[in-house]
């Protein structure tokens, strides 16, 4: 028998299909209980789809030139954030996960045991998250730069011992006692509020290789504002927002006052990360003092380092930190309010070379001396 396809029959078949699909949706025969595993074919299809999607979206993606995945500073930042945001579900070297998260379906992979993906794929998943799996996207909107630190850390994770991980994640200033399993909803170790700050910003408030800025010598008002902006999602960072959001007003206030009171004594002329382009300090100084008339670049020192101006102190900051934030600011305001609008207007036209020049100047002791002389 030959089945002749006619318009009428095609429409009828399509209608039947729609009815069947609706009936499936309404009756819901497929078990969504997390306790019951997927049908094998269904689970494999979903996982394969995810792999295909990630591969397609990271074709030809390389880390940006200023990101060196072997940089120990980046590993430390990545490890610290992994401890805050990821270890609860993905585990950490030598630390088991809480039984609760092991009941997730799909189960979040225990990453210390998993052969890592390509760095670009690690970065994509870290920044975007994955729908229907419980893997969240990056909370710092537009901060794809930050996710590279996590990717750098994940690429090195399988070969990492517990001691190495603890040293990276907690910094040299703290050595919390090991725990056998991660308490649910908490860090994989005893981490106080203050400990959460100093593992990256240092107990001296001088930062750590520019992955976290120096807080010493900033005004308390500025630090309070920055913490409030992070907590209120007015300033974007996947790393700082989860740290600032749980703090009470009085905690933020105390931390701001504490770090502002620390003496401003940055190490003179810190070594420049190899991946950062070298700049010309004299050009940077000219730009910092006068700006550039041809490209409408404002003079940095017109606001930063002017007594009474609420802009943060930038002299003596690490070149990595300055370069990261100048790249962000030139794309638009990074905080609410007219000050942020003005900052964005001043740096809109900065070139990569300008950023190299400026960071070379501001990291040097000359600018520190110039600013210290002006600000009591």
């Amino acid at each position, binding site marked *: 028998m030959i089945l002749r396809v006619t318009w009428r029959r095609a429409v009828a078949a399509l209608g039947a299909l729609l009815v069947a699909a609706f009936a499936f949706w309404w009756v819901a025969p497929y078990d969504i209980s997390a306790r019951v595993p997927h049908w094998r074919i269904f689970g494999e299809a979903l996982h394969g789809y995810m792999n295909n999607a990630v591969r397609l979206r990271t074709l030809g993606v390389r880390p940006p030139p200023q990101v060196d995945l072997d940089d120990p500073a980046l590993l430390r930042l990545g490890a610290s954030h992994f401890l805050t945001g990821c270890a609860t579900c993905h585990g950490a070297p030598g630390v088991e996960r809480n039984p609760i998260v092991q009941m997730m379906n799909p189960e979040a992979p225990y990453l210390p045991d998993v052969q890592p993906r390509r760095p670009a794929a690690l970065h994509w998943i870290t920044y975007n998250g994955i729908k229907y799996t419980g893997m969240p996207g990056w909370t710092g909107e537009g901060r794809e730069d930050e996710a590279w630190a996590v990717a750098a850390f994940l690429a090195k994770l399988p070969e990492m011992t517990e001691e190495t991980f603890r040293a990276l994640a907690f910094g040299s200033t703290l050595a919390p006692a090991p725990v056998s399993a991660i308490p649910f909803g908490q860090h994989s170790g005893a981490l106080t509020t203050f400990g959460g700050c100093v593992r990256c910003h240092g107990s001296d408030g001088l930062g750590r290789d520019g992955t976290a800025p120096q807080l010493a010598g900033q005004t308390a008002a500025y630090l309070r504002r920055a913490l409030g902006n992070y907590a209120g999602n007015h300033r974007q960072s996947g790393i700082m927002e989860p740290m600032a959001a749980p703090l009470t007003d009085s905690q933020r206030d105390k931390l701001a006052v504490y770090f502002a009171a620390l003496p401003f004594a940055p190490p003179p002329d810190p070594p420049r990360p190899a991946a950062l382009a070298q700049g010309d300090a004299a050009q940077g100084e000219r730009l910092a003092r006068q700006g550039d*008339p041809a490209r409408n670049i404002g003079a*940095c020192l017109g606001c930063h380092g002017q007594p009474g101006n609420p802009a943060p102190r930038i002299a003596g900051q690490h070149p990595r930190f300055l370069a990261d934030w100048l790249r962000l600011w030139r794309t638009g305001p990074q905080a609410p309010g007219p000050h942020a609008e003005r900052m964005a207007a001043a740096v809109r036209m900065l070139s990569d070379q300008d950023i190299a020049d400026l960071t070379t100047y501001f990291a040097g002791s000359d600018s520190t001396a110039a600013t210290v002389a002006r600000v009591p």
Partner: protein
Amino acid sequence: MRFHAEVSAQGGGPRRDLGVVSERKPWAAPAAFRQNRLRRIAAFSICALLLGGCEGAHSMLEGAGTGAAAVERLFWVMLAAAAVIWAGIMALAFHAARIKAQPEREDTAEKFVLLGGVVFPTVTLIALLIAGMLLLRGMIGGEPDLHVAVEGEQWWWRVDYRTPDGDVSTANEIRLPLGQTVELSLTSTDVIHSFWAPALGGKMDMIPGRTTTLKLTPVEAGRWGGVCAEFCGTAHAQMRFEIVVLPPEEFETWLAAEARPAAPAASADGQQVFLTAGCGACHAVRGTGAAGTAGPDLTHLAARATIASGILPLTREQLRAWIDDPDAVKPGALMPAFPDLAPAQMEALLDYLTGLT
């Protein structure tokens, strides 16, 4: 012969229509227009406006500079010649419509087309081109008495003088000595602008990465207007300037005053606000440490008559409105707003700025 009948019927139609049209006097305005007083008033106003453009600070017929006088001469010569040619053509057309058609010899017709349609326009246009070129040479050649650098930026004019006492930078107001030839070096930092002060001389493009020159010799003292004559972005229409022509000794006094650092602060609080708020990131006030270069030099702001590139008089109120929200005054202005200044801070700042004589 049905075909012929049709043709004659069709041929009859238009003739009747023509008859209807001819009942109305051809020079009378259409009925709809006659009844519409508003339209007439509008048309009258537009004519009045256009005629109004023929005099005043922006008029090329004012002859306040030798360049403009030359342009004006050329304009009148061209206008007169065009009038003669137009009258000739009209007479010819009238004649052609009146005469009875009669056979001409073919070579007479060819000669007429060749002379009237090829030789005459070629000679006329070449003569005009030569006259124009000579005029242009007169406008850019010769040794100047003074150099002024003018830079077009979105959307204002940076004006720099070199003096023995140091460089002078001002904005949107070009002061020139009467009777002296000044060479303007024109350039741009962003897009193509065009420098045009019609009362004083010709128009010259300002091109990023190149320097063009224009010479002006003002022969009449006064304030003359100028505009950007090349569309350059949202605030193009608000990119104006003034040329102030002064007797030479007055000009020298002014230039010497401009070369001096800023006057002592009229308000110490205001100066403090100026520095603290970050005005110095983009504006220089010589002698205060404010050394920004992105925006106009404000060392002698109060000596200028206008702000916002010639569109507003420099008054306390206009300054306040401008600082509070430049974009509201001039859409697209690149200066960021300062809505966060407290009223007392703003007043002190205005005291300071209006004291920068």
